[in-house]
């Protein structure tokens, strides 16, 4: 064997040895166990968490809108609402129809006749001139023998001669003026004259002075004219009608021209003012004129003869023009009262049927009726203003007395007193009320009133007026009445009979979370508040009941709600609360029933029915102020203070359902676990402790073989401690072991639901009540402790 063979053989042997490797027959991978254990040793996994859930969060998330807090942060479930009872039948507006009527009244005749008085008297002027005596001391006049002078005398030219003067006095004494006048003329103030030609105002008076022989010597001269009137004063006008004098003694000076033959003085006597009383429709006016005149002249020089002395002639023609008189207010110008056939009616309709007897209707301030009296428009407005119309209204109309109105109102007599001038334009009287005395019962909602005003007219006292302005021929038609008006009613008085119902169900559906609780001795103090706002100025009475819709009810009888007030402009609504509670003294409780817990006993009802009758005593007369928007508002609230004492005992059962799908897949696999412990660590500041037990149930509600087991012998029970004071957190750690046959998780596939039996207990100290507050919370961490991992057979999954 050479080297090659040797090497080859060695290679072959080694190769054979190498390839004949040992195969471990017991190491058969075809029989590999599929069991795989994930995890080793104790492992704690957090499997769930109830994150810190404060009461505030809970309420927000659950959208329990009715939960409110008081000023101390205490929670109260509050359910509130309200509604309105609309008072539809009380109308605030009613219509006063037009009741204008035309009445023909007799008008007195103011015509006054007077016989004209004509004066025409002449009188010589006594010239007080004694030539011989007065001129004998004069220097000699050449060619003139003064001693020989008789009625003729010579005045040297250029000589300063003494004034020659004369005077005349005369009294005109015509007959007194006698007049027949109408009754209502009380005094004659002034008699007004007129020119018979009608060209001038006043009666013309002409003074004519004829100088006769004196005319030749008048160089210049002056005449003093004086006229006195007896019994009054007169007004003298000039020829242009301008007053030049008013008084009883007229005096004036007139120039006498050189050589004047005559001097004319013309005056116009407009009126004679003299207060004269009318007696028996008759008046005598005395008329006496005292005339006097003095004149003086500066004579020229020469030879003069004074045989014919100057004369004065006075001519006058007193014609009645008018008279200014003072009227007698006691005498009625018009006195008219229509008979029943002439009466008109005012109807108040559409009164609500609840008005049983109407005593008075107060109207909103400023409501006016327009009264008018027409037919005397022909009167001079000034005169018309002197005439006072008195309209005596029906008794049921109460007007408001206004100090600055253009009329006066005699409330006692229901009389409007206004000038004919104002009435002819219409007078807006402020109507205050319709007063029906002891009351009128509407018939079919209607009250019919008779409008029959008594109308009189008289002159105002102390008014002077020209008689001519009163003169009117024939009768006068006077239209008197009320124009059509809408009146707004402020209040009605009388007997009314209102009756309203409040039927309300206060749903408490937001407390679903509490409905299924069996609550015993909760310490809950529910309170039902019904707040009624009474806009009626009528005292209301409330009767009714409140019930939980099942079997508990509380009655409300005879609760009175005061009438609303009226402050002069607005209705002051009266608000009354009906409080059904045994606490909350801060409310004005007008009705406190028995313990409210009798109403809510054992469980929270789904609703509380409130049935109230609100009515008015129709036997009592009241005043009802009426508003535009007339409605009774009411609201209600249910308050459940969420506070618990140590008597709280809530039993609550809850199923976490629909777990079939969750565990269903497990039954296909052989998954084993070792010791499995559910650990719950709870931090609680709620004043509620919870005793809980857990049971795993199948879909039929039966306990499954898989269960949780706590430390106690009675099964899966654990306790979550509650805070005693609602502030101090309480820590609880509860451990529940999962018991499944053989540690096979597949047993959980039978679990369809987790049944929780919870018993909540108030943790508050004895006699104390702890409120639920915002910051109170409950938080929990749920972990699972696996002591030996999870064992699965991967073959199950591969198959």
């Amino acid at each position, binding site marked *: 064997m050479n*080297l*090659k*063979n040797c*090497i*080859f053989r*060695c*290679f072959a042997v*080694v*190769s054979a040895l*190498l*390839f004949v*490797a*040992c*195969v*471990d*027959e*017991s*190491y*058969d*991978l*075809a*029989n*590999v*166990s*599929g*069991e*795989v*254990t*994930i*995890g*080793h*040793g*104790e*492992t*704690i*996994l*957090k*499997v*769930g*968490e*109830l*994150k810190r*859930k404060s009461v505030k969060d809970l309420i927000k998330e659950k959208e329990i809108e009715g939960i409110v807090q008081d000023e101390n942060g205490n929670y109260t479930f509050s359910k509130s609402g309200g509604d309105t009872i609309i008072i539809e039948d009380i109308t605030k507006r009613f219509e006063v129809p037009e009741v204008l009527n035309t009445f023909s009244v007799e008008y007195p005749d103011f015509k006054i006749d007077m016989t004209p008085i004509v004066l025409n008297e002449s009188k010589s002027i006594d010239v007080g001139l004694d030539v011989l005596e007065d001129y004998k001391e004069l220097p000699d006049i050449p060619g003139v023998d003064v001693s020989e002078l008789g009625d003729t005398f010579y005045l040297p030219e250029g000589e300063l001669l003494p004034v020659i003067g004369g005077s005349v006095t005369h009294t005109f004494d015509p007959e007194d003026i006698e007049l027949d006048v109408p009754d209502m003329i009380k005094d004659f103030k002034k008699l007004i004259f007129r020119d018979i030609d009608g060209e001038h105002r006043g009666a013309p008076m002409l003074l004519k002075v004829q100088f006769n022989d004196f005319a030749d010597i008048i160089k210049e001269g002056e005449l003093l004219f004086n006229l006195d009137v007896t019994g009054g004063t007169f007004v003298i006008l000039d020829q242009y009608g301008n007053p030049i004098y008013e008084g009883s003694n007229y005096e004036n000076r007139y120039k006498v021209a050189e050589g004047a033959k005559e001097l004319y003085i013309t005056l116009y006597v407009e009126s004679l003012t003299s207060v004269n009383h009318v007696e028996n429709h008759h008046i005598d006016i005395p008329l006496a004129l005292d005339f006097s005149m003095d004149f003086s002249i500066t004579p020229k020089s020469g030879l003069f003869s004074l045989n014919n002395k100057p004369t004065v002639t006075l001519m006058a023609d007193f014609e009645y023009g008018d008279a200014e008189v003072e009227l007698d207010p006691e005498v009625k110008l018009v006195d008219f009262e229509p008979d029943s056939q002439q009466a008109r009616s005012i109807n108040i309709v559409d009164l609500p049927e609840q008005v049983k007897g109407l005593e008075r209707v107060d109207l909103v301030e400023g409501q006016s009726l327009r009264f008018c009296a027409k037919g005397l428009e022909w009167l001079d407005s000034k005169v018309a203003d002197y005439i006072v119309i008195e309209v005596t209204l029906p008794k049921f109309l109460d007007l408001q007395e206004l100090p600055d109105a253009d009329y006066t109102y005699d409330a006692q007599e229901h009389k409007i007193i206004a000038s004919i001038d104002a009435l002819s334009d219409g007078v807006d009287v402020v109507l205050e009320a319709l007063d029906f005395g002891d009351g009128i019962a509407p018939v079919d909602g209607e009250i019919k009133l008779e409008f029959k005003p008594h109308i009189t007219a008289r002159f105002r006292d102390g008014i002077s007026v020209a008689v001519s302005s009163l003169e009117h021929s024939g009768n006068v038609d006077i239209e008197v009445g009320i124009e059509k008006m809408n009146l707004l009613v402020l209040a009605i008085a009388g007997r009314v009979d209102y009756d309203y119902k409040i039927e309300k169900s206060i749903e408490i559906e937001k407390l679903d979370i509490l409905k299924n609780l069996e609550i015993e001795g909760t310490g809950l103090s529910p309170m039902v508040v019904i707040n009624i706002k009474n806009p009626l100025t009528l005292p209301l009475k409330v009767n009714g009941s409140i019930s939980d819709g099942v079997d508990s009810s509380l009655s409300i009888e005879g609760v009175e709600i005061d009438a609303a007030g009226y402050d002069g402009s607005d209705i002051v609504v009266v608000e009354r609360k009906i409080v059904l509670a045994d606490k909350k003294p801060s409310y004005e409780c007008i009705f406190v029933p028995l313990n409210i817990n009798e109403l809510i006993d054992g469980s929270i009802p789904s609703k509380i029915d409130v049935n109230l009758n609100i009515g008015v005593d129709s036997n009592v007369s009241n005043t009802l102020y009426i508003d535009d928007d007339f409605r009774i508002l009411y609201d209600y609230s249910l308050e459940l203070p969420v506070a618990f004492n140590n008597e709280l005992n809530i039993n609550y059962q809850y199923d*976490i359902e629909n*777990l079939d799908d*969750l565990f269903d897949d497990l039954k296909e696999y052989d998954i084993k676990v070792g010791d499995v412990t559910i650990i719950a660590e709870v931090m609680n500041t709620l004043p509620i402790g919870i005793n809980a037990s857990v049971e795993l149930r199948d879909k039929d509600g039966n306990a499954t073989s898989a269960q949780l087991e706590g430390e106690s012998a009675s099964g899966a029970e654990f306790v979550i401690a509650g805070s005693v004071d609602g502030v101090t957190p309480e820590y609880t750690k509860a451990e529940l072991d999962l018991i499944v046959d053989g540690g096979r998780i597949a047993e959980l596939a039978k679990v369809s639901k987790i049944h929780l039996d919870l018993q909540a207990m108030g943790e508050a100290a004895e006699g104390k009540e702890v409120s639920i507050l915002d910051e109170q919370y409950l938080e*929990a*961490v*749920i*972990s699972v402790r696996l002591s*030996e*991992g999870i*064992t699965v057979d*991967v073959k199950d999954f591969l198959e």
Partner: protein
Amino acid sequence: MKKILYSILFIVGLLVSDVASAQSRTSYFMEGSYFRTELNPALVPTRGYVAVPFLSGMGINLNSNYLSVDNLFYQRGGQIVTAFNGAVSPSEFLDRLPNRGIVHNKEDITILGGGFFHKIRETNVFWNFGVGAHFSVSNTESKDLFTALKTLGNNSYNLGDTYLGGTLYLDLYVGAAVPITDWLNVGAKAKFLIGILDLGVEFDELSANVDVSKVTGTLRGNWRANGIFTENRYIVDGKYKGEPLGLSNLGNAKSYGFAVDLGAEVRFFDDKLKASIGVTDLGFIKWAKSTHIGGKLNGDFEFEGVDVESGDFVKPVGDIDTDNIVGLKSYDGYTTMVNCALNVGVEYNILKNRISFGLLSHTQFLTKAVYSELTISANFRPLNWLSASISHTFLNHNKFGIFGAAINFHPKGLNLFIGMDFIDCNMVKYEAFSIPRYAKSMNVYFGLGFSIGKHQRLQKHYAQSESLIE
């Protein structure tokens, strides 16, 4: 769909087919094998060859530093259980695992190839050329992955060192081995690379923390794909709208690269002692911009348990960034290094080179890991047409009893090679099959080629060997 199917079949084919010579450490010192040039271009076969298309090499190759039957299955009381069975303690299992687990598969197939000797001025140069396809898949995972599965409890687990990637490319190469002196050979090979497919899934952070209060997980990663099958212009609104391209669309190749193999062999003591060093696949591929698609894999997971309030029993709190899974804001071209290997060998032969003993250090530079082996081998060359080797690979906790063996028939006109680097003497059974128990890596190489030319040697003592054979 057909394109997709063909593509998948092709990739699977590459995974299971391997050129026997590819990285067969046992063949490194087998002089008759022409595949040794793949390990070191300075090493040459004894004859020229023509590779049979697609049959020049077939095999299965799986390299790992932890995957073995013994690590995964345990005997407990007559029952075979997995490492995750509760009967296996965590330490028993985990102590066997490296901190970083590596699984690497590199497949090379010579589509066309050949080599021949050619004298140039009395210098016998070995030329070789060919067209090859190369596919490599590498995966790294953290030990914490198994720690978590095995000891899942209140702990933190960092799985971030996890990577999965693969590259498929073609190369056209030409190389030469040249005897410089009597004692020195050098060789080089130049490769023009055509990128066919580059895949990568990388997790920068993949961690889990199992705390008593919550379980959290964090994922930060990205993925990419590039090659002839993709066009990023088809990505619209986070979805790939285009028709995937198939292998037939090689014309769509837009990624190219270049690589070299370099090697040298030094012989001492009359060629009795040889030292060699070879670097293969030292190069890169520049992947085109337009064929680059990818996305981000980001997510956060947090589970704090059931929300008791809502009664939601299963819903964890998590957030996965789904917007960027497909589609990036912009795409860039990029360059990847080809998986380079460093082979350093020392061989001492006796009996006129009929038997030699070799020590080979094989280091594979993977994308995210370096994989090293140290192989000793005894090499037998009893005949000129027959050579064989047995080997054992150290490192990676390979037990004794795991050895490599290869045999190469290379008479004139034929070159047949078969070999395995990890033959486990301890076998377990799975039904009718025997499965290595301790081997973490496994490969089977088979190659068939045609020898051409005369028996050639670059070494000085070749004549002596020849005469011995004769």
